Every structure is written in structure tokens, then in C-alpha cells.
């Protein structure tokens, strides 16, 4: 087991995969065979110290090969049609550290790695960038073993804003955040200032939201309504077991999020499948308000569009915060390098670049951002969000109850 966990072995394993991928018929068919090695992917001892040294040792042992850091993330982080931080991060990090950064962007995002772990396949990545609170809850619920290792002391980790830390077990470190808010066409209407205002007759059919089952903005907006109106306990519904009831900020225990959604439905809210569906319909004037991100004006200004048509509204001066975190895989080949990359992402200048290129907000208090950025990217007076403990065991019931109410055929 000990020798199986040394980086040298792992390197040779990857090289075998590479070889088999390029030679002969097996290569043509894209077949690969990998020796299943007990312990290679198992829960090794916490040998980060040796791995650390091993990372450089390997380089010496196998010639002048640079260590490769495989960073898994979602597609838009490295390949969006407008801007994305991937290329800049890779170039900058590689110019400083003697290593190669490789991006991995499987379409199923984190689920891909959960599946790999559940199937007993090796993880083949060192770091995941772009974790949400809910991703982490799902990973912990699904897998018996830990998918991620504790972050430990990361240089610059102290600068992360307290309200954003979402992992009670210290694995995920937030690197940016977004806010889900309303975007409305100011030439058509003035959006209401409160949740209740959305129920006015004036705003009948005026809002397009997204399905929380297939869209993260839709999920955030649903969670925001739960935060506002509470989940009404678990009488009769599929709501999580036990007594963990979210008390709404509206102060009315008899009116929960499902009541609010019933009223929204009565006022002809549209719930489409994805953010793209909703934004396309909104852009074509099907309705004047859409659930989207509070950075909308950054894109609008970039595209030379009229800002009046891209107004942001924070209902009740709040917005649902969606912090994104990064965490080292427990199975990482290069855990030390991965942690170096994490602290790189927290540097003030890098935080500013990520915010601009990912069109989001920095996670640290020390980020260097030009002042004009704040004039287009809006932050709410009161960010709200559910933490790990709130979501665990409750999220599925909340969504199921909502689905059963809205799609009642």
C-alpha cells in the first residue's frame, strides 16, 4: 500500500494510460486498461508531507518532466464565449511555478467525480474549482469516503470573508461569489421592491424564473423564497425529517414558501427550464423581469447595450449569495501543488482578475478591483444564503414539494 501511494507509481500509471491511448488498435478504439491496484485509490494515510517532497522527487526520477496539476471545473470557467478566467490563471500560475496546469471540464461537473468515486475509478484530478454548498452536501450524502481533503492552512485563507465560508469541515475555500437577483427592463416598468410586490396585479405575468431542478439560478431564487417565508414545517409534505423548520423572515408562521409560490403562480409567473431559456425569452420581451445575476450590467456595458434596459432589483434589499469554493481531492496526486494553486487564487490581484473574468465578486476582503467595477456589478445590502447544515437533509424535500405544487397535472 505504501509504495502504491507514491507519486512515482501514479505517474507511471498515467503514462501507461497515455501510451495505450496512442498505440495500435486499442488507441483507435480509445480503449485503456489500467491495473487495479488495491490501495492506490483507497484512503491512504495522510501522507501529504511525503507527497509534497515526492512531487519534486518524481520530477528528478523520471527526467525533466514537470509536475502536472489537474484542475477540474465547470466549462464556463475556462471556455465562455465572452470572458473566462481559465487561460489567464493557467498562464500566470505556470509563469511562476514550475508546473503545468491542465483543465478538466466534464459536462456533469462535480457529479462526474462523484460517479467516478462511487464506481471505484480513480479521480484523476487534484483540485475542484467551482464547488457550491449544495455540491458539497450532495457529495457527503452520496459517498461513504471523503471525496475532498481538508484545506488546512492556506496562505491568504484568512482574508476570505466570514459570511462566505460554507464548509463547516474546512475542505472548501470560497474564491468568489455571485448574487441571484431580479433583472428588469427599466424602459418597460419599475420592478417592485419586495417579494410581496411581485404579487401585485400590475406585475401579472411579468416575471420569468427557472426550474430549481435544472437551473442554479432557479434553485437560488427558490431558496431565497424559503429564506423569506419559511418552509412551514414538514406537515404533509416531503420536507426533510425532524423538526428543522426554516422560520421565514416575514414573521408569519402560517404563510410559507409554497403559499408564496401559489400566489406567484396565480399572478402568472413563468418557470422555464434553464437560465438561457429564461434570458432568451426575457431579451425578446416576453416578460419585463427575469431571475438572473446582479452582474448583468457588466455584460450589458460590455456589449454596448442600454443600461436602462438592464436594471437590477434586490427584493427586500436582499439577494441570494452563491459562493463558489475550491477543494483538494482526497485522492490528489499533487496535493501540495493544489494548495499552492488555492492560495494563488486568493491573492489580491488574482482575486480581482477572477472577479472581472468570471464576472463575479471576490471572496476576500483584500481583493484589488477597480472602483468602476462596483458601479456596474451590484451587491445587495443584505446577502442571504443557506449554509451547509440548513441544506443537508432539507433541500430535496423543499424542491420535491415545490415540484408537486407547480406541476400538478
Amino acid at each position, binding site marked *: 500500500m505504501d509504495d502504491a501511494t507514491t507519486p512515482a507509481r501514479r505517474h507511471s500509471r498515467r503514462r501507461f494510460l497515455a501510451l495505450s*491511448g496512442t498505440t495500435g488498435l486499442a488507441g*483507435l*478504439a*480509445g*480503449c*485503456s*486498461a*489500467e*491495473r*487495479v491496484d488495491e490501495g492506490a485509490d483507497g484512503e491512504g494515510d495522510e501522507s501529504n508531507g511525503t507527497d509534497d517532497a515526492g512531487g519534486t522527487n518524481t520530477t528528478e526520477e523520471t527526467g525533466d518532466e514537470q509536475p502536472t496539476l489537474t484542475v477540474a471545473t465547470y466549462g464556463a470557467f*475556462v*471556455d465562455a*464565449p*465572452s470572458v473566462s478566467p*481559465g*487561460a489567464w490563471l*493557467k498562464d500566470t500560475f505556470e509563469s511562476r511555478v514550475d508546473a503545468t496546469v*491542465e483543465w*478538466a*471540464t466534464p*459536462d*456533469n461537473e462535480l*457529479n*462526474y467525480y462523484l*460517479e*467516478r468515486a462511487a*464506481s*471505484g*475509478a480513480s479521480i484523476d484530478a487534484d483540485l475542484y474549482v467551482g464547488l457550491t454548498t449544495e455540491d458539497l452536501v*450532495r457529495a457527503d450524502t*452520496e459517498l461513504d469516503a471523503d471525496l475532498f481533503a481538508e484545506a488546512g492552512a492556506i496562505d491568504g485563507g484568512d482574508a476570505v470573508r466570514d459570511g462566505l465560508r460554507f464548509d463547516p469541515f474546512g475542505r472548501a475555500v470560497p474564491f468568489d461569489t455571485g448574487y441571484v437577483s431580479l433583472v428588469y427592463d427599466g424602459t418597460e416598468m419599475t420592478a417592485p421592491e419586495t417579494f410581496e410586490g411581485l404579487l401585485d396585479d400590475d406585475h401579472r405575468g411579468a416575471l420569468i424564473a427557472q*426550474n430549481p*431542478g*435544472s437551473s442554479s439560478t432557479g434553485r437560488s431564487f427558490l431558496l431565497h423564497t424559503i429564506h423569506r417565508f419559511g418552509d412551514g414545517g414538514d406537515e404533509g409534505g416531503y420536507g426533510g425529517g425532524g423538526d428543522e423548520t426554516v422560520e421565514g423572515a416575514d414573521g408569519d408562521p402560517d404563510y410559507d414558501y409554497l403559499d408564496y409560490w401559489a400566489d406567484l*403562480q396565480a399572478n402568472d409567473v*413563468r*418557470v*422555464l*427550464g*434553464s437560465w*438561457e*431559456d429564461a*434570458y*432568451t*425569452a426575457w*431579451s*425578446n420581451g*416576453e416578460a419585463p423581469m427575469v431571475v438572473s445575476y446582479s452582474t*448583468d450590467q457588466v*455584460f450589458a456595458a460590455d*456589449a*454596448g*447595450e*442600454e443600461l436602462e434596459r438592464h436594471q437590477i432589483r434586490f427584493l427586500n434589499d436582499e439577494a441570494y449569495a452563491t459562493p463558489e469554493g475550491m477543494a483538494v481531492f482526497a485522492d490528489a496526486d499533487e496535493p501540495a501543488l493544489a494548495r499552492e494553486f488555492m492560495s494563488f487564487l486568493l491573492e489580491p490581484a488574482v482575486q480581482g482578475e477572477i472577479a472581472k473574468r468570471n464576472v463575479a465578486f471576490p471572496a476576500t476582503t483584500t481583493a484589488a478591483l477597480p472602483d468602476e467595477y462596483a458601479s456596474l456589478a451590484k451587491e445587495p445590502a443584505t446577502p442571504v444564503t443557506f449554509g451547509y447544515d440548513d441544506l443537508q437533509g432539507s433541500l*430535496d424535500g423543499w424542491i420535491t414539494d415545490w*415540484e*408537486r405544487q407547480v*406541476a*400538478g*397535472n
Partner: protein
Amino acid sequence: MSDTPHRLRDRVKRRALAALTAATVAVLVVVFYYPVGTVLVEAVVVDGRLTLTVFADLLRDPFYLGEVARLFTGEGPVAVARALAAPDRRLGIVGFTAYQAVLSTILSVALGLPAAYVLARFEFPGRRTLRSVTILPFVLPSIMVAVGFVATFGRNGTLNAVLTAVGVPRVELMFTLEAILIAHAFYNAPLVARVTTAAWESVDASAVETARSLGAGPLRAFLDVVAPQLYPAVLTSAALTFVFTFGTFPIVLALGGFELATVEVFVYRLARDLQYAEAAALALVELAIALGVLFAYLRYEAATAVSARRVRPLPRKPLWPTAWTPRALAERAGIVTYAGIVAVVFLAPIVSMLLASVTTADGSLTLDHYRFLLTRQQTGAAFQVRPWPAVRNSVLFAGASALVALPMGVVVAVITTRASRGRSLVGAVAMAPFAVSGIVVGLGLLRGLVFGVEVAGWRIAVAGSAAIVAAHAVAGYPFVVRTVAPGLASLDASLVESARALGASRARALFDIELPLVWPGVVAGAAFAVAISMGEFTATVVLATGADAYTMPVAIERFIGRRLGPATAMGVVLLVVTGVSFLVIERLGGEVRDY
């Protein structure tokens, strides 16, 4: 000594069908049945134990099954039937999904048949080109269709602009069941048209002439001679349309909204949240219904095969009639009306898409979106998706997968038309790639192929180009079966028997006698195989992970941003490349051969 290769060749020829069958089964098992099985089994195996509770809970849940769920809670069929007849009946998600699929099928057949009539019975310039590109809508990703539909049928869309201009009240089509039905017809009426055209072109003119010479009027001759040979094709395409629209997913939420959610929406949600047992159980219910419809259709086809001996296609009429008889006038008036409907339902959304690719947010013309494609091609990083490799891969995969799908489809068609027992069952099972939830297929390929299987201490994994080609072939081959089998079934068995009596191998009889007689079906099948491959997303994105094997639909998805310009530009590239491929296929396939 010199006769050894001959003998070998003879043996190969004799065994060719058996070998092809074995290869077909192997491909199906490796890239379809096994991967899909790894997911579906989770419905009944939970935590390593066999259980039916997940399934039972699902069947008893009125949310999914509506009033039918009461059957599973112990109520009698009569009480359930009475509840279903009541005005306040509950259909449940499954019931609603079937309901909208039936409506979509009716609309698709209604909009597809006139096109088949025009394409098969009339001669006009550009007819072959038009026939070739009929099934273009098939390859369009749903987000592209959504863009085209909002621009056409939306509140401020083209249709309302036209209606206002002619003084007719505006229509609110978006976010209604009607919008979904029209979108389903947009995808599937071309399928009805293409399959039926192929069948119509195989109708033997001499049979019609005989009927007419015996005194039958044109209508009588049509109903007695032509129509029976069209029913299989119409029913094939209707059955396929039902299955496709029953498994519909993103388009429903893009144009309708969550109130109109279908089964697949919930399969997706459950799988995304890793509730595999529930997702698999729901996918099994979905599969059972889809396969049931296919099975029923195949039973019908087996019972009603009509024999035809030889084929001389019906002569085509000129679109501009030689004499304006009342009948010719009525026919032309119908065609003009139909052309108007086609312009609104099919052309307008595609034209809107083209326009979206050359306009900015404020409506002025621009080539920026195409410039984006060029820039991305030139400066895109290695880990980014670039347009040219996507085009190249799409074309290569489509060509290769059609070459694999054709023999697979022909072999299965031969087996299911010649086998006497259980042919409908085999036929239905062979159609499973159409009937299984796309989400389950994607997840299965990930587990079964990308992650691999442990065999004797080795983990064997399959991914990359060859796996994508195989997956595309499996996704497309049922089309070849469905476009070839009805024709084969209608061939007189004595044709093959006499050929074999004269010493021809089974394979030779197939290639020299049967296939030429059903050639329009083979060409149509090839076009569908290419269309499926060009538009395929789920399997490609799973199997291309880590390899530069992405295709045009993957590129479109990557280029979707806050503005849809770059994605629509790539969508137009997809349309053009696919359209050209169709033309090439039809030219290679040639017209119906005359004998």
C-alpha cells in the same frame, strides 16, 4: 492450392450474415444494453439488495400516474376508468406526457403527410434538394429551436407582426401547450414526410395501372393499392414521433414552462440529485410505455405486410399542371395553402435563427458572431472548444457512424422480417435506443464505458472517437431498421427462395435482389443515421471527456453565453454542414433504380 482462397471467400460469404449479426449484437451490448443496464438496475437493487419498494411507491403515486395509480393501491379497473372519465381527472406526469405526445404525433402526421405527397408525386425544380434537406430540423439543439420560436411566435415575434399588419388579432402562443406541440411538429413532421416519401416512391406503378384498367377510379386505386403500402411508413413515423415526443426534455421547459413538465424533466432532476433508484424506476416506466407502443405497432406491421414483387415508381406529375382541370386546381390550391403553413411553422423559425446569428442586441446587422468563431479558431487555447475541429469531428463521426449503422440496421431488419416467432418482440427490443431516456443513456455510458469495467484485475475503459462513432451508430441504426424493414417485409419471399435455389448465398440474395428493391428506404435510413450523429449531444459529451473529440452540438453548448449570437452562428454552421451532408448522401444514393 489455389482454391483455398476461393473456398475461404465462399465460407465468408456464407457466414457474412451470421458474422454481421454477431457484430451487431456485440456493439449493442457494449455501447447500449450493458451501460443502460447499469443504471436501470438501480430501480430494483438498492444498497445491494433486491427490492420492489421504489417501484411500488412510484406506481402508487398519483403525482406520476394520476388516477391510474389507484389501480396499484387496490382499486378496481372500473372505478379507475370512471375516475379517468370524470372531468376533474388527474393525468399525472406520465399521463400528461403521453397526452401531449399523442397530440404532437397527430399534428406531426397532419403536417408531414402533405409534404410526402408533394415530394413523392410531383416533379419540380429543386425537388431532390428539397427532399434531401427535409429532415434538417432534426439536428437542431433545443436552445436553437427556442431562439427561433421565440423570435417567430413570441409576443413581439414575426407572426404577431404579420397578424397586426393584416389587421388580425395577435396570438399569445409562448408558454402554452400549443407552443410545445408546434415545436414537436417542427422536429417530427419532417420525419413523417421523409419516411413516407421513401415508401411512396417504392409503390409499384403497374399495380395502380392494373387497378385503373380494371375500372377503379383514381381515389379507389389510391385507397386499394397505394394507401396499404403507405400505412406501414405512416405508422412507423407516427410510432417514432410518439416515442420521441414522449421522451421530450429541454424544449418543453424552454417553450412551455414547468407547469407542462414531462417525465424526462423528473428523470433529469432525480439523476442530477443522485436519487438513482427513483430516477431509474421512472425511466423504466417511461421505457415500458415507449416500448409498448413500438411493440403494438410492430405487431400490426407483421399482421398486415403486403406483398409486392417488383418496383417501377409512379410517374410524377408536373407542379404546374398541363391542363387546369377542377381537380388539378383544387390540388394546387391545397399545395399553396400547405406551403403557407410550412413557411410559418418550419421556415420562419429557421430564418429567425439565421437572423439572430447576424444581429446585435439592438437589432442592427453584424458579422461579429461569425468573427467570434474565426477568432476562437485562431486564438482559442488547446483546452477550449474551437469551431473547425468540431466541424471536422462531426463530419467524420457522421460518416463513420452511418457506415456502421447501415449494416446493423439491415441485419436487424432482415432478422425481424424473416423470423417467424417473436419478431415483434425482437423488433421492439432492437428499437430500445429510441425508447430509453437520454439521461439514463448518458449516465450509463459514463459508468459502463468511460469509467470502465474490472476484468481480472484490470480496469478496461472505452472512450474517444471510436466509442462516439459506435454510440452514434447505435442511436441511429433503429432508423435504418424502420426505413428498410417495412419494404423488406412486403417483398415476396419467393424472390429470395428462387435466388437461393439458384445457388446464391443468403447475403448475395440480400445485396443483389432485396436491397435494390427497397433502395429508397436504405437512402432514407442513411440520411437519418447521419442526422442523428450530427445532432447527438448526450453520448458525445460523455465520451469526448478528455479527448479532442467534441462535435458541433458540443461547440454550440459551449458558445452559449449571455448573448446567444455566437451559439446561433455555430448553429448555422451546423445547419449548413448537415444540409450539405444530406445532399451528398442523396446524390451517392441516387434516385430509385428503374428496372
